[in-house]
């Protein structure tokens, strides 16, 4: 078996004096300090609310949206597949009969409690009609009351696919 001898540092006079090492370290930190002080755009911090992140991938699971047919009517057929698949039980659907000839059923009420949702994407996988998607790219949803986080069908229908994402 080969034995690898790892050299032990800190026994040379230079290391024991501490001063050269400390001076080298302080030089490094000072260089960073001066560089950032001269031009604060060198800082790595993103000034978040004003500067939004631009590195959200196409597969990012954001807030949900309900897709539409060509005639702008809701694609969902209220099959309850997503609500069944949901591990957080945050989707609530109420079905009604559909009379416009497109299909037999459509959701009368489709609410998602975003506080309950774990953003797992199972509802998207479960959907047989590609009616629910999580490609809005919305990563921060804020509100002042719990009720504001229960989003309804209109909100979900009005959500668009994120413009930063590539087209399908």
């Amino acid at each position, binding site marked *: 078996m080969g034995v690898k001898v790892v050299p032990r540092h800190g026994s040379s006079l230079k290391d024991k004096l*501490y001063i050269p090492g*400390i001076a080298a*370290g*302080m030089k*490094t*930190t*000072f260089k*960073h*300090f001066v560089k*950032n*002080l001269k*031009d*604060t*755009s*060198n*800082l*790595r*911090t993103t*000034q978040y609310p004003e500067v939004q992140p631009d590195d959200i991938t196409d597969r990012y699971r954001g807030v949900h949206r309900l897709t539409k047919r060509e005639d702008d009517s809701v694609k969902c057929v209220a099959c309850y597949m997503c609500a069944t698949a949901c591990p957080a039980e945050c989707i609530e659907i109420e079905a009604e009969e559909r009379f416009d000839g497109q299909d037999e059923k459509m959701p009368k009420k489709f609410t998602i409690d975003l506080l309950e949702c774990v953003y797992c994407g199972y509802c998207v996988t479960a959907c047989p009609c590609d009616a629910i998607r999580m490609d809005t790219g919305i990563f921060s949803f804020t509100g002042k009351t719990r009720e504001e986080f229960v989003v309804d069908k209109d909100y979900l229908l009005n959500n668009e696919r994120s413009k930063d994402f590539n087209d399908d």
Partner: protein
Amino acid sequence: MSSASIIVVIVNILLAVVLAVGTTPIMVWWERRVAGFIQDRTGPNRCSIYGFRLGGLIQSFADMLKLVFKEDFSPSHVKYKFFYTIAPAIVFFCSFLTFAVIPFADTLVIDGFEYTMQAIPTELGIMWFLAYAGLATYGIILGGYSSNSKFGLLSSVRAAAQVVSYEAAMGLSIISMLVTYGTIHLSDMVAFQGGIIEFFNYEGTSIGLPAWGIIMQPLAALIFIVTAFAEANRAPFDIAEGESEIVAGYHTEYSAMRFGLFQVGEYAAMSASSAIIVTLFFGGYHIPWVDTETIQSNIYVVFGVIAVSLVFMTFVLTKWMKKNYSWADENDSRAREGKILVKAFWMMTGAVCLVLILFIVTGLGTNGINIATAVIQIGTFLVKFFMMSLVFIWVRWTLLRFRYDQLQMLGWKVLLPLAILNIFITATVVVVFGS
């Protein structure tokens, strides 16, 4: 007492109070912003009053307000409430009192009366500093011990061991300085440093380096600075705090303003250490190569130089602000704040320059010249003081904390023998060549 003497005393005490306590928010702000810049991040810059962020300075005041208004909670397992309560006060007061002996300017002469520019014109000098700097650690020891928790106790033991091993080296390094200066009075020490180490004499003017402590006694300066870091409980010697091993050490069980007092005490200790280092080794209030008489006899030239350099500094500052303190959106509060601050800086510079020009035109009496010299020297002291504080901060964000055994090794086996050796060398030089 004349009204002039009362004013001088009040100014001195105010200076000591402001430098010891009032600078804490500024130090915290510096600490966090410098730390941020060293680590390529911004540090706090969000807190604002009417859109005024002052580069994040407001955050310190917000934090202070928060600490003041927080619930003063003391855990039920604290048995000795009295000691638990006075511990932060001891830390705070001792660090604060250390400032009392720092000379801010040369002896001020008004109408023939001499005023020592110290908050407490005591005869003890450096002994006062040693006494109170050492005593501040007792607050830490007491706080940790009376917290009645394992972390607090461990921290107390560490602080006690550290103060024992570093106080010795510190005292010995000061002894070599006493031998060099031949006095224990800080004002005499600083007066001594106004001189020049003569290399050669050119037509009656001596040319050489200023007789600063660090140039005459580099080894003592190094030992003193290292031990001062340990004394102020700053990184790399903050093993008493040791948040990676013992949570927060002595202030684990403290909250609200009691914790705040510990924090203020820590920064006051840092300020006091910077002030004493500047006083002992960096010429105190002296501008290098320019002693008090030179300023007094060339006061109008000095005024001119100050006015020009002020305008230049404001120009550099505003240029920097236009580049780094602006915001793309014109209507944003940040853009507005930047513009207002630039205007305010120029107005302040203009006002100071106007006053200086007025002085140059009308001329000053003897009292006026003396007071102006004192103000200039206080300014010099402040610049040096803040630079030294910056070094404290800079070191904190560069060096790692010493391991406990390494710390003791360094204290007993390196610093103490070096300090004793330095005393021998200094004494020999003084005896052979005269002081």
